[in-house]
Protein backbone atom coordinates (compact mmCIF):
# COMPACT_ATOMS: atom_id res chain seq x y z
CA UNK A 1 0.00 0.00 0.00
CA UNK A 2 1.35 3.45 -0.92
CA UNK A 3 2.51 5.68 1.90
CA UNK A 4 1.58 9.29 2.42
CA UNK A 5 2.90 11.43 -0.41
CA UNK A 6 6.14 13.27 0.12
CA UNK A 7 5.75 15.96 -2.48
CA UNK A 8 3.22 17.82 -4.58
CA UNK A 9 4.81 16.21 -7.61
CA UNK A 10 4.18 12.75 -6.21
CA UNK A 11 0.60 13.68 -5.39
CA UNK A 12 0.11 14.98 -8.90
CA UNK A 13 1.52 11.77 -10.34
CA UNK A 14 -0.94 9.72 -8.32
CA UNK A 15 -3.83 11.95 -9.35
CA UNK A 16 -2.83 11.73 -13.00
CA UNK A 17 -2.55 7.96 -12.82
CA UNK A 18 -5.70 7.12 -10.91
CA UNK A 19 -8.20 9.91 -11.52
CA UNK A 20 -11.42 8.78 -13.14
CA UNK A 21 -14.11 10.74 -14.87
CA UNK A 22 -16.51 12.75 -12.76
CA UNK A 23 -20.01 11.40 -12.41
CA UNK A 24 -23.31 13.17 -13.00
CA UNK A 25 -23.89 13.45 -9.27
CA UNK A 26 -21.01 15.93 -8.95
CA UNK A 27 -23.12 19.07 -9.05
CA UNK A 28 -23.40 22.31 -7.16
CA UNK A 29 -25.92 22.18 -4.34
CA UNK A 30 -27.45 25.07 -2.45
CA UNK A 31 -28.12 25.01 1.26
CA UNK A 32 -31.79 24.16 0.75
CA UNK A 33 -30.78 21.08 -1.18
CA UNK A 34 -31.42 22.43 -4.65
CA UNK A 35 -29.15 20.69 -7.12
CA UNK A 36 -27.94 23.13 -9.77
CA UNK A 37 -28.05 20.46 -12.44
CA UNK A 38 -29.78 22.39 -15.21
CA UNK A 39 -29.53 25.75 -16.86
CA UNK A 40 -32.97 26.68 -15.55
CA UNK A 41 -32.05 25.95 -11.95
CA UNK A 42 -28.80 27.87 -12.23
CA UNK A 43 -30.57 30.89 -13.72
CA UNK A 44 -33.19 30.80 -10.95
CA UNK A 45 -30.40 30.70 -8.39
CA UNK A 46 -28.60 33.60 -10.06
CA UNK A 47 -31.84 35.60 -10.15
CA UNK A 48 -32.22 35.11 -6.43
CA UNK A 49 -28.65 36.26 -5.87
CA UNK A 50 -29.24 39.32 -8.02
CA UNK A 51 -32.32 40.25 -5.98
CA UNK A 52 -30.36 39.86 -2.78
CA UNK A 53 -27.54 42.01 -4.11
CA UNK A 54 -30.04 44.67 -5.17
CA UNK A 55 -31.63 44.62 -1.72
CA UNK A 56 -28.26 44.93 -0.05
CA UNK A 57 -27.29 47.82 -2.30
CA UNK A 58 -30.51 49.76 -1.63
CA UNK A 59 -29.68 52.87 0.42
CA UNK A 60 -31.39 53.05 3.78
CA UNK A 61 -33.51 55.95 4.90
Amino acid at each position, binding site marked *: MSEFVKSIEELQERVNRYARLRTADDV*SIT*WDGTRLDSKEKVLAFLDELARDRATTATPEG
Partner: protein
Amino acid sequence: MREPRPPDVGRIVEALNRHGVEYLLVGGVAAAAHGARRLTADADTVIRRTTDNLEATAAVLQDLHAYLLVDGLSDDEAKALPVQIDALALSRMEISTWRTDAGDLDVLMEIPAGDGTRRNYEDLLPRAVDATYGADRTIVHIAALDYQHHRSKRWSNRPKDHEALPELRAILNARDSHSVVAEREAGPGR
Protein backbone atom coordinates in the same frame (compact mmCIF):
# COMPACT_ATOMS: atom_id res chain seq x y z
CA MET B 1 -18.91 19.28 -22.25
CA ARG B 2 -15.34 18.15 -22.74
CA GLU B 3 -13.96 15.47 -20.50
CA PRO B 4 -12.03 16.87 -17.55
CA ARG B 5 -8.31 16.49 -17.24
CA PRO B 6 -6.87 15.63 -13.84
CA PRO B 7 -6.62 18.69 -11.61
CA ASP B 8 -3.31 20.54 -11.51
CA VAL B 9 -2.93 20.16 -7.79
CA GLY B 10 0.20 22.29 -7.55
CA ARG B 11 -1.40 25.18 -9.37
CA ILE B 12 -4.58 24.98 -7.30
CA VAL B 13 -2.65 24.83 -4.04
CA GLU B 14 -0.45 27.73 -5.13
CA ALA B 15 -3.47 29.88 -5.96
CA LEU B 16 -5.25 29.04 -2.71
CA ASN B 17 -2.15 29.73 -0.62
CA ARG B 18 -1.28 32.91 -2.51
CA HIS B 19 -4.71 34.33 -1.73
CA GLY B 20 -4.51 33.20 1.87
CA VAL B 21 -7.50 30.90 1.66
CA GLU B 22 -8.09 28.77 4.75
CA TYR B 23 -8.88 25.36 3.29
CA LEU B 24 -8.41 21.63 3.57
CA LEU B 25 -7.96 19.18 0.76
CA VAL B 26 -10.61 16.50 1.03
CA GLY B 27 -12.08 13.91 -1.29
CA GLY B 28 -10.17 12.01 -3.91
CA VAL B 29 -7.01 14.12 -4.01
CA ALA B 30 -6.69 13.91 -0.24
CA ALA B 31 -7.32 10.18 -0.38
CA ALA B 32 -4.61 9.88 -3.04
CA ALA B 33 -2.23 11.65 -0.68
CA HIS B 34 -2.91 8.86 1.80
CA GLY B 35 -2.43 6.17 -0.83
CA ALA B 36 -5.88 5.58 -2.32
CA ARG B 37 -6.25 4.81 -6.00
CA ARG B 38 -9.95 5.41 -6.53
CA LEU B 39 -10.56 9.07 -7.14
CA THR B 40 -12.41 11.30 -9.52
CA ALA B 41 -10.79 13.91 -11.71
CA ASP B 42 -11.47 16.86 -9.45
CA ALA B 43 -9.93 18.55 -6.45
CA ASP B 44 -12.23 18.88 -3.45
CA THR B 45 -11.69 21.48 -0.79
CA VAL B 46 -13.48 22.40 2.41
CA ILE B 47 -13.06 26.09 3.13
CA ARG B 48 -13.56 28.09 6.28
CA ARG B 49 -16.87 29.83 6.05
CA THR B 50 -16.03 33.45 6.81
CA THR B 51 -16.71 36.42 4.58
CA ASP B 52 -13.02 37.17 4.14
CA ASN B 53 -12.26 33.57 3.28
CA LEU B 54 -15.14 33.35 0.84
CA GLU B 55 -13.89 36.50 -0.85
CA ALA B 56 -10.38 35.05 -1.05
CA THR B 57 -11.77 31.85 -2.52
CA ALA B 58 -13.76 33.83 -5.05
CA ALA B 59 -10.53 35.59 -6.04
CA VAL B 60 -8.90 32.21 -6.61
CA LEU B 61 -11.74 31.08 -8.83
CA GLN B 62 -11.53 34.30 -10.79
CA ASP B 63 -7.78 33.92 -11.19
CA LEU B 64 -8.30 30.43 -12.53
CA HIS B 65 -11.06 31.59 -14.90
CA ALA B 66 -13.55 29.29 -13.25
CA TYR B 67 -17.02 28.63 -14.51
CA LEU B 68 -19.80 26.66 -12.89
CA LEU B 69 -20.14 23.09 -14.04
CA VAL B 70 -23.71 22.30 -15.06
CA ASP B 71 -24.74 18.88 -16.30
CA GLY B 72 -26.00 18.97 -19.85
CA LEU B 73 -24.38 22.24 -20.81
CA SER B 74 -21.41 22.53 -23.10
CA ASP B 75 -18.35 24.37 -21.90
CA ASP B 76 -19.31 27.41 -23.95
CA GLU B 77 -22.88 27.36 -22.61
CA ALA B 78 -21.63 27.02 -19.04
CA LYS B 79 -19.16 29.87 -19.52
CA ALA B 80 -21.98 32.04 -20.85
CA LEU B 81 -23.99 31.76 -17.64
CA PRO B 82 -24.03 35.13 -15.84
CA VAL B 83 -22.36 33.82 -12.71
CA GLN B 84 -20.84 36.54 -10.55
CA ILE B 85 -18.19 34.76 -8.53
CA ASP B 86 -18.11 36.42 -5.16
CA ALA B 87 -18.50 35.70 -1.48
CA LEU B 88 -22.29 35.93 -1.67
CA ALA B 89 -22.56 33.34 -4.43
CA LEU B 90 -20.23 30.96 -2.65
CA SER B 91 -22.00 31.43 0.66
CA ARG B 92 -25.28 30.25 -0.87
CA MET B 93 -23.89 26.95 -2.10
CA GLU B 94 -23.07 24.11 0.24
CA ILE B 95 -21.13 22.59 -2.62
CA SER B 96 -20.03 24.40 -5.76
CA THR B 97 -18.42 22.65 -8.67
CA TRP B 98 -16.15 24.62 -10.96
CA ARG B 99 -14.12 23.99 -14.05
CA THR B 100 -10.93 26.04 -14.04
CA ASP B 101 -7.71 26.47 -15.97
CA ALA B 102 -6.24 24.08 -13.40
CA GLY B 103 -8.92 21.42 -13.76
CA ASP B 104 -12.10 20.80 -11.85
CA LEU B 105 -12.30 22.25 -8.37
CA ASP B 106 -15.09 21.73 -5.87
CA VAL B 107 -15.61 24.10 -2.99
CA LEU B 108 -17.42 22.60 -0.01
CA MET B 109 -18.52 24.23 3.21
CA GLU B 110 -19.23 21.01 5.10
CA ILE B 111 -19.07 17.29 4.67
CA PRO B 112 -21.28 14.65 6.27
CA ALA B 113 -19.84 12.83 9.24
CA GLY B 114 -20.51 9.28 10.25
CA ASP B 115 -22.95 10.13 12.99
CA GLY B 116 -25.44 12.00 10.85
CA THR B 117 -23.97 15.39 11.71
CA ARG B 118 -21.79 17.53 9.51
CA ARG B 119 -18.20 18.66 9.78
CA ASN B 120 -16.86 22.02 8.69
CA TYR B 121 -13.34 23.39 8.33
CA GLU B 122 -12.93 24.02 12.05
CA ASP B 123 -14.06 20.48 12.83
CA LEU B 124 -11.72 18.87 10.31
CA LEU B 125 -8.61 20.99 10.84
CA PRO B 126 -7.44 19.53 14.17
CA ARG B 127 -7.20 16.07 12.65
CA ALA B 128 -5.75 17.14 9.32
CA VAL B 129 -2.28 16.16 8.22
CA ASP B 130 -0.14 19.25 7.67
CA ALA B 131 2.00 18.35 4.72
CA THR B 132 4.90 20.62 3.86
CA TYR B 133 6.19 20.54 0.34
CA GLY B 134 8.96 22.01 -1.71
CA ALA B 135 11.79 24.41 -1.10
CA ASP B 136 9.34 27.17 -0.23
CA ARG B 137 7.78 24.94 2.47
CA THR B 138 4.26 25.19 1.09
CA ILE B 139 1.83 23.98 3.75
CA VAL B 140 -1.18 22.00 2.65
CA HIS B 141 -3.81 20.80 5.11
CA ILE B 142 -5.00 17.38 4.04
CA ALA B 143 -8.01 15.87 5.75
CA ALA B 144 -7.28 12.82 7.86
CA LEU B 145 -8.25 9.67 6.10
CA ASP B 146 -10.01 7.96 8.98
CA TYR B 147 -12.24 10.79 10.03
CA GLN B 148 -13.18 12.51 6.82
CA HIS B 149 -13.16 9.99 4.06
CA HIS B 150 -14.26 6.83 5.68
CA ARG B 151 -16.99 8.26 7.84
CA SER B 152 -18.34 10.71 5.31
CA LYS B 153 -18.33 8.20 2.49
CA ARG B 154 -19.99 5.66 4.72
CA TRP B 155 -22.95 7.96 4.93
CA SER B 156 -22.92 9.10 1.34
CA ASN B 157 -25.60 7.87 -1.00
CA ARG B 158 -23.46 8.04 -4.10
CA PRO B 159 -22.48 4.69 -5.60
CA LYS B 160 -18.94 5.83 -6.35
CA ASP B 161 -18.38 6.69 -2.70
CA HIS B 162 -19.53 3.27 -1.59
CA GLU B 163 -17.21 1.73 -4.17
CA ALA B 164 -14.28 3.59 -2.63
CA LEU B 165 -14.96 2.37 0.91
CA PRO B 166 -13.18 -1.00 0.75
CA GLU B 167 -9.93 0.59 -0.37
CA LEU B 168 -10.12 3.33 2.24
CA ARG B 169 -10.85 0.75 4.91
CA ALA B 170 -7.85 -1.30 3.77
CA ILE B 171 -5.57 1.73 3.97
CA LEU B 172 -6.78 2.50 7.46
CA ASN B 173 -6.27 -1.06 8.59
CA ALA B 174 -2.77 -1.15 7.14
CA ARG B 175 -1.62 2.16 8.54
CA ASP B 176 -2.59 4.18 11.63
CA SER B 177 -3.45 7.77 10.76
CA HIS B 178 -2.10 9.00 14.06
CA SER B 179 1.31 7.59 13.30
CA VAL B 180 1.32 9.51 10.04
CA VAL B 181 0.61 12.73 11.90
CA ALA B 182 3.35 11.91 14.39
CA GLU B 183 5.78 11.30 11.56
CA ARG B 184 4.98 14.68 10.07
CA GLU B 185 5.30 16.45 13.39
CA ALA B 186 8.67 14.81 14.02
CA GLY B 187 9.93 15.71 10.55
CA PRO B 188 13.40 16.95 9.71
CA GLY B 189 14.59 19.86 11.74
CA ARG B 190 11.67 19.84 14.16
